């Protein structure tokens, strides 16, 4: 028997020799990547907050790293793309402008958003700009020119560097207020570029609920002719008579983002039967508009949209309160009680308010315009968006550029869909696509956008740039 076991052992040993020989499953076709006619050696991205990687109501290092231009540049690197320099915040100032994080949920399941206020890149050694506190500078030969807040209108204005801290941080002191954004980006002379600008020519107006601050020259809807002139000049400057190829993106329907779609349905459902309608201010003046309960948009019915920021005040419906106006005055003059009082009086008089009346139900104490986007305001935004998008597509055709139709894309994701076992929808927090500000995507959302752009580039130019595995990017972090 001993002999048998010896032989058995030898046979087993012989068998295992096979295990160590190569036995990799191989695919029949090799992966073919190709840049086609494109030259990715110097890619430059031009755009606003979306291009910067802004999310969760702030710009911070993680968002910059997961910006769609950085993802694009990474994918371009497989087909001859060069280095891509972003104006990253340092590790020590990783939280950049500060942002919102999800701290938890209230007993009713409402998300509790907490501001992140440590490790900021905010400068305290200099006076703030009209657009906010200044940020630590990053000057030099950068390639991601995403500037949160910038519009087509603002991009042509040399003084804008003295207004917007995100633009100011990218400029030398000598350039601030002297050089326009268009001049800066055209001077980079890219071999390939992406251009996604124009959202803020309507979005600022939209997110402010149709209110234009008279002190902000960029708060309204940009006239179409102005948009056309600047956008055409910008695209032509980047293209250099088709020497550089690139991709432009259209402007999404602002009504497709959770910032406008989250609050209304809940608010409508919670309205008592005795309340058939609410009253609100409309646009920037003292005009009132009545919004019937059935006018509140739920899904694709109704029209009136309530902003995500309205949640803080809608609970006060029916109460004699002027809290919104006090908060506005306080935000403007945080440390000057007298000036604050003065401002409050001005607001009450300007909008002819009596805050002893029922908030939102009485015409004397209507809902503030900034919390509601009513049908009339939306019509203006719609009209402008359509016109801008036509301009963008025409400019793309004239300069032989690919188009990422963000308008169509963001409308297509209104219907929840599933990919690799993950459900995506425009739902706030749970939809995986939008970050905590309800307007800007999550890193996952940005990766999905980058893939859509790659597909548009490949379709236009016949290149084979690979897409990226979007599941490697996070959605909202859940405590």
């Amino acid at each position, binding site marked *: 028997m001993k002999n*048998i076991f010896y032989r058995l052992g030898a046979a087993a040993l012989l068998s295992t020799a096979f295990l160590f020989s190569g036995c990799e499953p191989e*695919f029949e076709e090799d992966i073919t990547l190709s840049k086609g006619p494109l030259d990715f050696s110097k890619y430059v991205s031009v755009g606003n907050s979306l291009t910067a990687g802004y999310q969760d109501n702030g710009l911070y*290092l993680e968002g910059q790293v997961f910006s769609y231009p950085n993802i694009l540049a990474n994918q371009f690197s497989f087909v001859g793309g060069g280095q891509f320099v972003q104006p990253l915040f340092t590790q020590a100032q990783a939280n950049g402008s500060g942002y919102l*994080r999800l701290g938890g*949920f209230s007993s009713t399941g409402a998300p509790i958003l907490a501001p992140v206020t440590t490790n900021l890149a905010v400068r305290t050694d200099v006076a703030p700009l009209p657009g906010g506190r200044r940020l630590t500078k990053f000057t030099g030969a950068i390639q991601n020119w995403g500037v949160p807040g910038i519009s087509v209108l603002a991009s042509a204005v040399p003084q804008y560097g003295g207004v917007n801290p995100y633009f100011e941080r990218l400029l030398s002191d000598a350039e601030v207020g002297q050089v326009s954004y268009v001049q800066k980006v055209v001077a980079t002379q890219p071999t390939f570029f992406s251009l996604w600008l124009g959202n803020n020519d309507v979005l600022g107006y939209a997110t402010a609920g149709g209110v234009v601050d008279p002190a902000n020259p960029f708060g309204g809807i940009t006239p179409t002719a102005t948009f056309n002139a600047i956008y055409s000049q910008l695209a032509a400057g980047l293209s250099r008579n088709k020497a550089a190829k690139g991709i432009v993106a259209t402007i999404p329907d602002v009504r497709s983002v959770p910032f406008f779609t989250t609050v209304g349905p809940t608010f409508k459902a919670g309205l008592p039967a005795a309340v058939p309608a609410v009253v609100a201010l409309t646009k920037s003046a003292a005009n009132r508009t009545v919004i019937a309960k059935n006018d509140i948009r739920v899904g694709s019915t109704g029209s009136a949209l309530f902003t995500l920021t309205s949640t803080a005040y809608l609970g006060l419906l029916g109460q004699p309160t002027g809290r919104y106006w006090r908060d506005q005055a306080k935000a403007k003059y945080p440390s000057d009680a007298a000036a604050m009082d003065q401002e409050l009086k001005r607001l009450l008089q300007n909008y002819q308010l009596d805050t002893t009346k029922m908030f939102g139900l009485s015409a004397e104490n209507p809902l503030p315009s900034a919390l509601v986007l009513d049908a009339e305001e939306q019509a203006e935004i719609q009209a402008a968006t359509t016109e801008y998008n036509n301009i963008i597509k025409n400019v793309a055709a004239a300069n032989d550029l690919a188009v990422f139709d963000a308008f169509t894309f963001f409308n297509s994701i209104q219907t929840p869909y599933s990919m690799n076992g*993950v459900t995506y929808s425009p739902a706030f927090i749970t939809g995986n696509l939008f970050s905590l500000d309800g307007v800007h995507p999550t890193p996952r959302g940005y990766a999905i956008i980058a893939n859509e752009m790659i597909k548009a580039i490949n379709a236009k130019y016949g290149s084979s740039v690979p897409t990226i595995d979007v599941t490697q990017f996070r959605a909202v972090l*859940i*405590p």
Partner: protein
Amino acid sequence: MKSKFLALLGSAVLSAGVAQAGGFQANLQGQKQIGMGHAGTGLALDQSSIFFNPGALAHLRQNGIQLGVSALNAKIAYREPSPGFSESTTDNPISTPFQVYASFGKEESPLRFGIGVYTPFGSSVNWGNQWQGRYGLNELTLKTIFIQPTISYRISEKLGVGAGFVYSTGSVNLQRSIPLTDASYNEAGVELDGSASGFGFNLGVFFQPTEKLSLGLTYRSKVEMEVKDGDVTFMLPTSPLVAGQFQATQFDASLPMPANITLGIGFKPTEALTFAVDVQRVEWSAYKSLRFDYNAGVRGETFSESPRNYEDVFIYRVGAQYKVSDIFTVRAGAYYDNSPVQEGYLTPETPDSDSRGVSGGLTLALSDKVDLDASFLYINKKERTDDASKSGGVAGTFKSVAYIPGVGINYKF
């Protein structure tokens, strides 16, 4: 942060293995038969007839005991749909399907008793928790052990019948990621773990009209493996609101091990040479869906179900053995196995496709009483691309190969 990003972009190294036959069937029930493309229903080769054809058992001249084991070494490669190009491939822990058969009975009696313990179904698939399809599956381990007491009766020199009762025991462990990331960037997940059992039977007829020709027909019934009160373990972000969405702690499930009907032909043109041909029909249509019933809500549902809708398939097997000398026999064979998985239903548990197997084997007679078997089987499944639109699986292209060496020992008394 930058480096983390780049690390994420590198193609993940993943680990995977697969059961060697269509679906999760593992046709590795006798070392001699493996060497002949797993054909042998129409032959009375050895004690493994307890599995292959209980009707042939009583035609064996001697009683004996047989032990065998295979080392299943399989790999799957995955490539995401174009224009994506992420791939995942690598090793998998080797699984070891085994078989033990013993027969008893008086030498002159037409009656034989036998017992078989074998592992006809199983799967070990480990994709890891980084790959693209991790919300479908990280890891699946399915084990079954069939215990089959058997009785075989030799009606005449030409005809034998046999029947076995099957008690099956096993376990299932399934792990998948949940698309929720906590503040420390840990991804949520769930593990289902339970033991299963079931019953069935195995019937066979063996007919040997001439010295040179023999036929066999067997029916192995479906065995419904039932899991009762298996454990559900969630790994979740700590927020109570999230925990409230995932309250299940136990699950029930039922997985069908499909019925098989096999017709086998044996042909012996000379004393030393034997040919075997089997046609095996596997009634995979029993596998309609994978359903888990929970004892409490998971995202508001008390069950989850994803369609499988497997279809019945045929497996074609051919094999030959040649007795070189009294102590040395060699074998070779091949088979073709149609995939039961229909278009649109591919899943990462069984990224199955039509497969081709080639095998070889040998027997060394060490003494009158002791034989040593060795076999080697190579399986190559066709590359398959599927959008997985109907099964909620993972879209992409899969390719599997397996190398399966095996050894067995026979002791005759």
